[in-house]
C-alpha cells in the first residue's frame, strides 16, 4: 500500500492505496466522488475526464499513485455554493444532455478549451472534444452548448 495525498476540488485527501488502483476508481470509491464515470475503460471515451494540475486527462488511464501530490478537479468542482458553472448552465440551456453519461467529461473538456481559448470556432470546439464520445444525443447540441458557454463566460467577465 502507498500513502497518497491529493487535492480534489480544493479539499485535501490522504489515503492508503494499492499501486494498481486506477485514478478513476480512487475518485469514485475512496473519495466518493461518483460524478466521474467509467465508460469504455480503454482510454477512448473520455467519460472519466478530470483535471490534473489544470489539464484534462483520462482518469481510467492512470494510476492513483501517479497522481500523488496533484491538484485534481472533477465535475463536482464546477458548481460553486449551489450556483451552476456557466458550462453547466449552457449544457442545460442547449439540451446537450440525453442520458448524461458522457456529460461530466464533456463539460471538463469544454472548460479546458474555454480556459485557453475564450472564443473558439466550431472547428476548435469539435477538436477539443475529440477525446469524448457521446453515444446518444449526438454532438450538435454539445457543440452548441460549448459555444453558448463561451458567450456566458464572456458576459460574466465583462460584467
Amino acid at each position: 500500500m502507498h500513502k497518497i495525498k491529493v487535492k480534489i476540488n480544493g479539499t485535501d485527501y490522504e489515503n492508503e492505496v494499492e499501486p494498481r488502483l486506477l485514478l478513476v476508481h480512487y475518485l469514485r470509491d475512496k473519495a466518493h466522488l461518483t460524478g466521474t464515470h467509467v465508460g469504455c475503460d480503454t482510454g477512448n471515451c473520455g467519460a472519466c475526464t478530470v483535471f490534473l494540475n489544470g489539464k484534462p486527462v483520462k482518469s481510467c488511464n492512470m494510476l492513483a499513485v501517479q497522481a500523488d501530490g496533484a491538484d485534481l478537479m472533477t465535475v463536482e468542482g464546477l458548481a460553486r455554493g449551489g450556483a451552476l458553472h456557466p458550462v453547466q448552465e449552457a449544457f442545460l440551456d442547449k439540451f446537450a444532455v440525453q442520458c448524461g453519461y458522457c456529460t461530466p467529461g464533456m463539460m471538463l473538456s469544454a472548460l479546458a478549451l474555454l480556459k485557453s481559448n475564450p472564443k473558439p470556432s466550431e472547428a476548435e470546439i469539435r477538436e477539443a472534444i475529440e477525446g469524448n464520445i457521446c453515444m446518444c444525443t449526438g454532438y450538435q447540441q454539445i457543440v452548441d452548448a460549448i459555444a453558448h458557454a463561451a458567450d456566458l463566460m464572456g458576459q460574466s467577465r465583462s460584467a
Partner: protein
Amino acid sequence: MIPPKFEYLAPTSLAEATAFLAAHPEEAKVVAGGQSLVPVLKLRLARPGYLVDLGRISGLSYIREEAGTIAIGALTTYAEIKESALLREKCPLLPQTAAVIADVQVRNRGTIGGSLSHADPSADMPAPILALGAELKAVGPKGERRIAVENFFHGMFATALAPDEILTEIRVPVLTGQRSAYLKAARRATDFALVGVAVRMRVGKNETCDEIAIGVTGVADKAYRPAAVERALAGKRLEPKAIEQAAAAAVQGVEPLGNIHGSAEYRANLARLYVARAIAAAK
C-alpha cells in the same frame, strides 16, 4: 478492468531508477505517462513485478535549441510538442505529428520518450523521428550512450534499449526552410495509425527535390524508411506523376503485416497512397 498486482517505485533520480532496473532486469517495467502501458496492464498483456515510474525525476521535460539541434527531454508530452513555438518554427514535423496523436487528454499525459521506448508498430512518433534522423540518448547504470534512430527500433515492442537503460533525450536537427508533413490513415480520428507517413524535404528551384527523408509507421513490425522512394525522388522535379511512380516502392524490402484492422495487402496499398499524399501535402 483492473491491472494485475505489482510493486510501485517512484525514484527521484535516474541513478536510482537504473540501479533498480539493473537489479530486476526481467521483472521491472518503466512507466512515464502510461498512456500505452496502463491499458496494456489493464488488459493483462503485461504482468511486471515492479513498475518504475519516471514521473518524480525532474529535468526530463524540456525542448531547447543546442548547437544546431533541438534537444527534447523524454518526458515531454505530445501536448507540449504540439504547442512548442520553437519546434513549430524550427522542426514543424514534430508538432504536425503530435497534433494527430490520440486526443487532447492522451496528449496531456503521453510522452515522446514513452512512445519510442514502447515501440508499438502502429505508433505515430517513430515515423517523424526516423525521417528526422534523430539521435537518442539512453542512460544506464554504467553511464550514457547515444543511439542513432536507424539502430533503435528492433521490431514489435523491441528496441535497442537494454533492460536497465532509460531513454532520456531525443535530439533532432533544426530544419528551417524544409517542407514537412505527417499524414495518417486510421479508422477513427483518435486511433493508432493503420498507416502513418512522415516526410521532410528540401526543395530547390523549379520544385526540384534536393533532399528527402520519409518515415513510415503502421505497415511492418517496426517503422522504416522507404529508401527506394527516397532514391527515386532525389534530384527529380516534384510532379504528381513522379511522386506517384516513386511511391509505388513504398513497401519495397519490408513485409507488411495484417490484422483485424486491415490486411497486409490493404496496408501496402495505403502505404503507397499515403506516401504520395504526404509528399504532395508537405509544406
